[in-house]
């Protein structure tokens, strides 16, 4: 590729970047990317608040409790037994609860809510007429548990929906969006090879998608860690491969943008209506586990899944359609996954370049 081509590609990227990053119509992509950040941030704030409340309870407690003490309480125990085992509750309040006694009758029963904590776990007891009638246990969340939840959200939501639809918006807009705007001729009337135009637009889309979604991944990770002490974070990062996991998530995000970007760029060139390819790709990706071995390799999720740091098992209560969407294809080696995904993307872009060469401007058809 000579220097003119690079000059042209950089000129195209500059023009496209403005549209991709600062367009009002692209705001929803930022929302897609920021939604999980907000979610993890909220989670951390809630946990920080609850942790503070538990610490206060420990300070107010008559005695130092252990997890074993807390979980030794059962339904039906008398209030005296509870006090004997756990001491006077550090937090206690009384509420009147309406109890149904018949179809049209009810009585009001005063209920004492007693809370205990060992600093990490919390036990809330409902006591009526001197006996325990309800128990609610809440355990403090460990970084290990949260990193597993993060892995699940990353694989089943962020990767398969947020990045998927984000790339759909960004990369479809590159050609199909310009046709709808009736501005694609701007490029087609310049001495730029159509293939160069496609590469320039793809790189611009990739840059935008990568920046938006990688930033989101990093922010999600940071938001998740906010609730933990510095020592816990340092240990996780140094000894439990925290940094390696974060790098893996960032790498998978970039590869997802490369893969889905190539598919949606091609789809934007080949189809007038993005619903058809979007639905088709969604179904194709979902059907990946049941596809023959050769066809499996022509999907993006096949490679991405193998690169994620955690293997996530499915929630048994998940609806069949969603379960199919979230099912795990068998893993393959990291290098095969990376090169396989890049190869699929290049193949798709090659197919798109054939189409872009024959592209005609017929805005009225859109």
């Amino acid at each position, binding site marked *: 590729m000579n220097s003119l081509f690079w000059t042209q590609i950089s000129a195209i990227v500059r023009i496209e970047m403005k549209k991709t990053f600062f367009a009002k119509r692209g705001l*929803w992509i930022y929302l*897609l990317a920021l*939604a*999980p950040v907000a*979610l*993890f941030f*909220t*989670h951390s704030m*809630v946990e920080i608040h609850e942790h503070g409340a538990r610490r206060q309870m420990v300070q107010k407690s008559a005695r130092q409790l252990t997890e074993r003490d807390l979980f030794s309480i059962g339904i039906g125990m008398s209030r005296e037994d509870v006090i004997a085992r756990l001491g006077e509750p550090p937090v206690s309040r009384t509420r009147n609860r309406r109890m149904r006694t018949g179809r049209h009758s009810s009585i009001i029963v005063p209920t004492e809510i007693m809370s205990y904590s060992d600093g990490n776990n919390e036990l809330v007891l409902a006591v009526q007429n001197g006996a325990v009638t309800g128990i609610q246990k809440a355990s403090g969340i460990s970084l290990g548990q949260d990193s597993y*939840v993060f892995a*699940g*959200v990353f694989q*089943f*939501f962020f990767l*398969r*929906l*947020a990045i998927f*639809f984000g790339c*759909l*918006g960004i990369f*479809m807009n590159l050609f*199909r969006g310009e046709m*709808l705007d009736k501005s694609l001729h701007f490029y087609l009337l310049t001495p730029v090879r159509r293939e160069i135009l496609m590469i320039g637009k793809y790189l611009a889309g990739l840059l935008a998608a990568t920046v938006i979604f990688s930033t989101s991944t990093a922010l999600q990770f940071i938001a998740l860690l906010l609730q933990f002490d510095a020592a816990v974070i340092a240990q996780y990062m140094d000894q439990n491969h925290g940094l390696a996991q974060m790098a893996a998530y960032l790498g998978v995000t970039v590869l997802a943008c490369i893969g889905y970007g190539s598919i949606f760029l091609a789809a934007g060139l080949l189809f*007038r*209506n*993005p*619903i058809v390819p*979007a*639905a088709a790709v*969604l179904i194709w990706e979902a059907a990946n586990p049941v596809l023959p071995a050769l066809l499996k390799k022509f999907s993006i999720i096949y490679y991405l899944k193998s690169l994620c740091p955690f293997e996530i098992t499915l929630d048994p209560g998940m*609806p069949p*359609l*969603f379960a199919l969407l979230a099912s795990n294809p068998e893993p393959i080696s990291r290098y095969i996954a990376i090169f396989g995904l890049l190869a699929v993307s290049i193949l798709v872009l090659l197919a798109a370049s054939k189409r872009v060469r024959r592209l005609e401007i017929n805005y009225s058809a859109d």
Partner: protein
Amino acid sequence: MAVYKRSYRPYSGETTPVWSRFLVLYRFSRRNLFRSKVQTVFFVICLFFPLLCLLGIYANSHLNAITFLSRSTGPFLDVNGRFFSIYLDVQAAFAFLLTAFIGPGLVSPDLANGALTLYLCRPLSRTEYVLGKISVLFITLSWMTWVPGLVLFFVQASISGWQWMWDNLWIAGAIVLGSLVWIAVLSLAALALSAWVRWRIVAGALLLGLFFFGAGFGRAINAVLRTQQGYLIDLSQLVSIIWHDLFRDAGEPPLSVSEAWIALLAFTSFCLYLLMRKIRANEVVR
């Protein structure tokens, strides 16, 4: 002084009743809808499953044939609330796809081409316009959800007798009400997006995103915040909670039925508000 020959006479003949004028929009949109071969073929495909169910009911009643085929004496399938609940699940998925095809094209072209003002300067009110447009989805989706559902119900009733019908009349109600809830959610979401996004195809993509992203993000909320309230933004889950109740399915739904109704009511009201707000901007003040 100019003398103008008064040759113009306004139309003084009979006109259609005011209440039925919105149907003009329905007829026009329906014709457009079935002009597309792809959409017509898809609509026909949507009727395959009800046909399959019909064959199942028929086969179920002819035990001899079934015994011959399966060499077992038990019932081939139980035609009960569960059967119709599954029927509605499948048809709802088809209804969603059909809405994603046709819904976004109902209002956005009128806005993009400035036709909305032309419509509203006729004796056609904002409500009638919305009614006309929504009736396209309502009637089309009805033909693939509750209408064939009721046909299946009555076929089964004709086979099993009046007692079965009387005992299971609630199923007919569940089919109709369950379908109408889903149709209302789909129609209003599609029209609201169609009114707010100039591009038909972007509105279609947003509709896909609304349902899939809502479901995914709802589950992410549940996983991260250890709650069940995330289902409040999962429209398909909310509707399935209502169906769960209507079809008297066993098991505990993740949210209460009243929560599901309130969330859906809030969502549909918001869609209606968005739709009316967008159309009001083009209304001709008389």
